[in-house]
């Protein structure tokens, strides 16, 4: 057995999986916590990021979908991964700006349900547009060669430490996430910019009456949230399939991350994402465990575990682990 090695692998896998959730949840959480806007189309930004990354980095062949019918056999710029990592956040940032301007802004004053419905509609539209254009098939973003490969871990010879290896890319994902999270945290917590947005949440008109142009911080904040989702799409893509449906399927764990961590709290998002990632990976790795003569195989529960986690958190701390109690106006 190789307990220590297993734990390290588990930690890294869990953190990496969590990192994707964190990137998504931060955007969701600041948009929800500061702009009071419920974005069911956040997953769409993730998909857009993933496809944009794919098309910048590689050349793909499209075989069903309208593009193929229209005679495009292959599309993509084939520039490699690094340009994708640089351009995608910029691109999705711009998409985020447009989304704020044309979808979110007219809905700030409308009830939550309307916001959810319209963004849900948007999510459908993005998914189905991609489906119609490039088809439903799954693509794979190739891990950049610099980050390909594994770090073999070998312990001191007296511990039976068979080789475990860590995917280098996973470490990269963790590092990139950490850097971005810190930057956004600083902006939201320590600048007037963050303060203005928070104030505008409750009373945008009053903010304007104080002489502050509110639309700009709003739109930028939205853009930042979107860009993070785009980054998640690119860095997550090499470890997952890219198809039009991934946006919706990632939305649920991303929302759970927000709920577990607490709305509006960046630290909460980090904690929530990490927990979810860990639980998911740990349950897979736990395999069958016998206790008191009953053997439970935990692997099938891997997908269920995160929901149980959410329920437990919610029942014990309804505002989320690091969330603050709501203050009525």
């Amino acid at each position: 057995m190789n307990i220590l090695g297993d734990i390290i692998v588990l930690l890294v896998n869990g953190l990496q999986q969590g990192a994707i959730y964190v990137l998504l949840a931060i955007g969701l959480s600041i948009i929800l916590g500061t702009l009071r806007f419920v974005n069911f189309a956040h997953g769409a930004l993730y998909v857009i990021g993933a496809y944009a990354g794919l098309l910048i980095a590689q050349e793909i062949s499209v075989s069903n979908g309208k593009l193929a019918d229209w005679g495009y056999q292959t599309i993509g710029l084939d520039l490699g991964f690094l340009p994708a990592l640089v351009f995608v956040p910029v691109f999705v940032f711009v998409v985020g700006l447009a989304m704020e301007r044309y979808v979110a802004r007219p809905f700030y004053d409308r009830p939550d349900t309307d916001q959810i419905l319209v963004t849900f509609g948007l999510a459908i539209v993005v998914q189905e547009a991609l489906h119609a254009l490039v088809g439903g098939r799954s693509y794979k973003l190739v891990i950049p060669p610099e980050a390909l490969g594994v770090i073999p871990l070998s312990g001191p010879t007296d511990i039976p430490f068979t080789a475990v290896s860590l995917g280098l890319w996973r470490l990269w994902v963790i590092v990139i996430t950490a850097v971005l999270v810190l930057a956004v945290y600083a902006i939201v917590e320590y600048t007037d910019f963050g303060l203005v947005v928070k104030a505008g949440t409750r009373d945008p008109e009053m903010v304007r009456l104080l002489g502050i142009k509110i639309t700009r911080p709003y739109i930028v904040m939205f853009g930042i949230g979107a860009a993070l989702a785009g980054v998640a799409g690119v860095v997550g893509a090499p470890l997952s399939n890219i198809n039009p449906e991934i946006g919706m399927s990632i939305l649920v764990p991303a929302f759970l991350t927000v709920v577990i961590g607490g709305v509006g709290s960046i630290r909460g998002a980090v904690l929530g994402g990490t927990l979810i990632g860990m639980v998911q990976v740990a349950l897979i790795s736990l395999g069958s465990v016998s206790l008191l003569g009953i053997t439970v195989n935990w692997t099938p529960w891997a997908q269920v575990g995160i929901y149980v986690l959410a329920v437990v958190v919610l029942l014990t701390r309804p505002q989320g682990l690091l969330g603050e109690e709501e203050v009525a106006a």
Partner: protein
Amino acid sequence: MSDEVQTPTEPESAEPGEQSPSLYERWAAVREQESTVAVLTILGVLLAPFVLVTVPDAIGLPSDLTWYNSLITLTLIWAIFAIGYDLLLGYTGLLSFGHAMFWGTAAYAAGIFSAEVFGSPIAMILAGTTVAVVLAWVIGWISLRRGGIYFAILTLAFGQMIYYIFLSPLSTVTGGENGFTGVEVGNLLGVIDLGSQVPFVPVAFVSNWMYVFAGTALVLAVVVGYRILNSPYGVVLRAIRENEQRAEFVGLNVWRYKLMSFIISGAFAGVAGSLYTIQRSYVPIENTLQWTVSGDIVVITVLGGAGSLFGAIFGAGLYMYVANIVSGMAGIGDFWHLILGVVFIVVVVTMPNGIWGGISWVREKSLLLPEAPTIARQKAANGRDWITSLVGGEDR
């Protein structure tokens, strides 16, 4: 016809000098009555196959543009689901994104019940609905601790949780990815094979007993739904939708009422889910428990018209037609889902009462009847603002 629930108003004649009510107004008063609603629903159910299948066939419309009988049955089933969902969304104002779990667990419960215990369709419905109600009680109890957006997110999450539980840990019972294939639907009341034709009634009107069965269920659903809206619950639920805090402070146990509304809605979904199993003799997991089903019912209800039972039924019909018939048309068929998404957004933005509400509005407008409710009016105005802002109007 609009079925905004109104307190029956006293006869206008009390005020002297008033004109006697117009024909339209009299009709408007009559149609609110429950028996009228029931009769209209029965007529609709009876005429649907004739109008949608027989007549188009007879006049030679191409078959890839027209309905087919099993689709109409399926639509009735979805309509029951939509009515229940509308009670929650349209009247209580709670947006659930996890209703697939009630539809789905009921479908499984009915299917497994038929295989393990008893194949009577009525017993299957009872089994499925019971499971859905119990589940709704548990999930509602947890999810309703948080309001607004949390409710949507939590129901979505629970829906997915149930999906994954049925998919993997319970796959020995549920068949997992394969779906549950062992459904054994028995005869109705021990004698009637649901697949067989109804004696004496021409196929042009009623295709088979399954249609009668589903149609009866729909009529009952409409009547019960109507009754609920006319019971104290109806007005209490709308009060909660409009001002929850105030409702609490007139002594209403808001939480319990919301929970009840959730459970009632779950029960309708349960009936519909069980019928789905009965119709298909198979329980496919993705079409019962996956979140897409929850999304579909949201789209159906909002598109048709939340806050109006007939709107919900209309939405079910519209969605089924687009998803099953339009999807096969050359050219636009490939884009059906995309088009539906776009239409959905337009409806959310501009038509607070859905397409059905829009139709009623236009009709009442043209008859110079009183204006739509204020909030609806306000929302419609918001919609127009949105459009102005899209075309680069005032930078708000």
